[in-house]
């Protein structure tokens, strides 16, 4: 078993990047991602991490550098938040179209306006369809572990996709948590050096990033779509292997006291831990409530989600972003798609909560469950509201 230490989650993430033997780090500082980049900069400057640190002038350049370095076969890393993500978003689609397994940590933060540095998922939802494998993680240990898992999955010859690790800004990034560090030998055993399928090399010239005429573009997108869906089996395989190595097993959908529950809370990211406390409190009162947590956002685990929720009467989905003018929160929208056409599926009640870092306590989860249960009891077939707004 590895050493268990108290560590800020951002520092743990940076330490994982070091242990993953990353060759190239290119990032531009932005709150709340800053500590990750600062620590990596120190590690490179002190010679503890044998890699190149590129100080770039913007996030757009940060990811562009990673595209170039990954294309020559260098394991590359970047991280950002909110406005920085917006600026580099153009390149996210390019990295996935070129199938370059870059790893990016998003310390999730609210997109302006109004200007806000605090946490929600509006940044991640902006690039929902950019073609990266996307994890939403609940605590520091999961973030640390998924740096290795992310590279291992992304670089697999059967996968070759860039990977996003979403961790809630401040709520995770700036909090000191107990982290069980993995011994370097184990990391090396789990994560061998990157062996690219194609790379830019003068001995064997190839062209990456060529244009495609309408006569072939649809074929390229179908290939990408089929490939990311088929990456699911590899993700499961890698999680299993990681579990055997460390004792920490991960799944696309996690459940907590959910098997017999009439009402299920559905959360993504750090909400999961608080919601599980709320579930315990409601169980103590004899209420039939459980929790379903979505860890894998892309490719979306439709079958696992259905299996986890179909016996429930109602789902109380807690979103952390608003789809302005859309069907409600983005997670609830996905949940409804997953259940569409399924006979007798649970009623979906959607709350947007905790946007721009507003605290969501266990008592808030209980209030949301109360409200949804009452309204559904009174005949509501669905519901949507931004929770806790002063009228």
């Amino acid at each position, binding site marked *: 078993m590895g050493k268990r230490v108290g560590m800020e989650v951002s520092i743990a993430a940076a330490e994982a990047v070091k242990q993953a033997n990353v060759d190239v780090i290119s990032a531009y500082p932005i709150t709340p991602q800053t500590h990750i980049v600062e620590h990596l900069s120190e590690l490179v400057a002190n010679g503890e991490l044998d890699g190149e640190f590129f100080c770039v002038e913007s996030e757009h350049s940060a990811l562009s550098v990673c595209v170039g370095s990954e294309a020559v076969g260098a394991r590359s890393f970047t991280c950002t938040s909110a406005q920085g993500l917006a600026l580099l978003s153009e390149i996210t689609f390019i990295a996935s179209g070129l*199938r370059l397994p870059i790893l990016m940590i998003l310390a999730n933060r609210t997109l302006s306006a109004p200007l806000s540095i605090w946490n929600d998922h509006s940044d991640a939802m902006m690039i929902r369809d950019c073609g990266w494998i996307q994890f939403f993680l609940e605590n520091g240990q999961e973030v640390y572990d998924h740096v290795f898992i992310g590279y291992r999955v992304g670089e697999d010859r059967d996968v*070759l996709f860039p990977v996003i690790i979403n961790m809630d800004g401040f709520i995770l990034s700036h909090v000191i948590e107990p982290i069980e560090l993995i011994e370097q030998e184990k990391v090396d055993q789990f994560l061998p050096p990157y062996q690219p399928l194609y790379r830019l090399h003068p001995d064997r*010239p190839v*062209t990456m990033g060529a244009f495609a005429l309408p*006569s072939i573009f649809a*074929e*390229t997108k*179908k290939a990408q779509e089929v490939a990311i869906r088929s990456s699911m089996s590899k993700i499961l395989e890698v999680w299993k292997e990681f579990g055997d190595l460390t004792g920490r097993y991960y799944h696309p959908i996690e459940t907590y006291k959910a098997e017999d529950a009439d009402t299920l809370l559905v959360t993504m990211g750090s909400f999961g831990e608080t919601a599980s406390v709320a579930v315990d409190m409601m169980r103590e009162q004899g209420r039939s409530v459980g929790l379903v947590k979505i860890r894998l956002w892309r490719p979306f685990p439709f079958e696992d989600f259905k299996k986890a929720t179909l016996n429930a009467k109602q789902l109380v989905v807690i979103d952390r972003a608003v789809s302005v003018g859309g069907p409600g929160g983005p997670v609830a929208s996905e949940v409804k798609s997953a259940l569409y056409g399924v006979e007798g599926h649970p009623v979906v009640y959607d709350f947007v909560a905790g946007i721009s870092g507003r605290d969501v306590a266990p008592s808030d989860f209980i209030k949301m469950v109360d409200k949804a249960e009452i309204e559904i009891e009174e005949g509501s077939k669905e519901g949507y509201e931004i929770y806790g707004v002063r009228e």
Partner: protein
Amino acid sequence: MTKPESEWTWKELPVGNVILEPGNASQYRTGDWKTHKPVLNKELCVHCGLCYIFCPDMTYNLDAEGYFIADLYYCKGCGICAKECPTGAISMEEEEK
């Protein structure tokens, strides 16, 4: 590419749509963009090669008789050759009337 891209299926595409065969841009037919094509009057041609030099798409090639002839597979019909020809030997004519 070994065959026109309109015949490729999605399963045949290399991962990331990497192009493995160098120089295949020469198969890209830009000649179907044009509405006007250059026509050479050999009686006026002085073999100076200015059309060859100015052509932005390198469509002109020297033939066995010493004339520079536009390859209509690539010629986009821009008319620069006709404009630059010092003897007026090249005229632009509608490709389809």
